[in-house]
């Protein structure tokens, strides 16, 4: 058994292999399909509250440093200490440099299927931090994107709209 505590270090080795041999993007989509099992229904039926509820569980079980700010129409997820990247970095096998890509790789398709809009700032592949804004209205999402681009002009923002 790979302890659940050590899954991300195994995951990191899977990413290295797939990056070298092909299939990493397809794997992110496979992860996304599996994650639908855990969260898509809640996201669809409860919208931003469903996302909030899911990340309350994740914050507890994965021991995240995660601040959440819920405002009308917009939920911010502010990861101040990502346990996943932290473990992948605290690892004698070394970090896959695309490690962080798995997260937007799975969440963007799930949010799209749920009818939600996300703006994602990874902030850096060697920093266990990221910031995302999830919105339930397309026009508001476009407006938020402009605001974020103004305040973070150098950020490479990912989005699903």
């Amino acid at each position, binding site marked *: *058994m*790979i*302890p*659940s*505590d*050590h*899954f*991300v*270090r*195994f*995951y990191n*080795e*899977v990413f*290295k*292999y*797939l990056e070298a*041999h092909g*299939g990493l993007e*397809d*794997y992110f989509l*496979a*992860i996304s399909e*599996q994650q639908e*099992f*855990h969260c898509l229904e809640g996201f669809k039926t409860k919208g931003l509250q469903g996302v909030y509820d899911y990340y309350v569980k*994740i914050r*507890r*079980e*994965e*021991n995240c440093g995660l601040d959440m700010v819920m405002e009308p129409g917009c939920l911010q997820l502010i990861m101040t200490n990502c346990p996943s990247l932290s*473990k992948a970095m*605290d*690892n*004698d*096998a*070394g970090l896959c440099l695309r490690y962080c890509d798995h997260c937007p790789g799975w969440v963007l398709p799930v949010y799209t299927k749920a009818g939600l809009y996300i703006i994602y700032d990874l902030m850096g592949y060697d920093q266990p931090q990221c910031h995302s804004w999830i919105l339930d209205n397309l026009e508001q999402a476009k407006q938020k994107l402009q605001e974020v681009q103004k305040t973070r002009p150098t950020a490479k923002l990912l989005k699903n709209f």
Partner: protein
Amino acid sequence: MLRYRETGELHKDFHGSTSLALDFVAERHGEDALTEILHNVGTKVYASIHQKLLKDDPSELIEHLAYFYNREEADFDLEVTDQEITLRVRQCPAIAHIRKVGLPLSKCFCRSTTEINAAMCEGTPWATETKILAEGQCVQRFYRKEKKA
């Protein structure tokens, strides 16, 4: 002393993610790809355990088994003698969780045990074998290749 010693809550859904990863790699890249990845986990991620075994020191392996099977609340026994370490798992917590939540169980799932164990022991005075008794039940043995004088 353990190189990795996590505390706090557990996210057991990662066992389902392990199952998916094993199937994805085996189906897309074949059995050898899976072996390569698991070998890297056994020798590089668990480099500390592997390096100690190379020096005929099984202490971290024993601590690893005891700590993480306890942490996952497995139903198990761990028996240690000078010549052999035997882990009897009566209910694998990973498989139990996958079955509980209703995710698919990879047919390769137990290779994540057998091949990582084998990699940790590779080139060391220790060998390993695992008998799968039933789903979620196994006996993992680590034993000295030559009896210590």
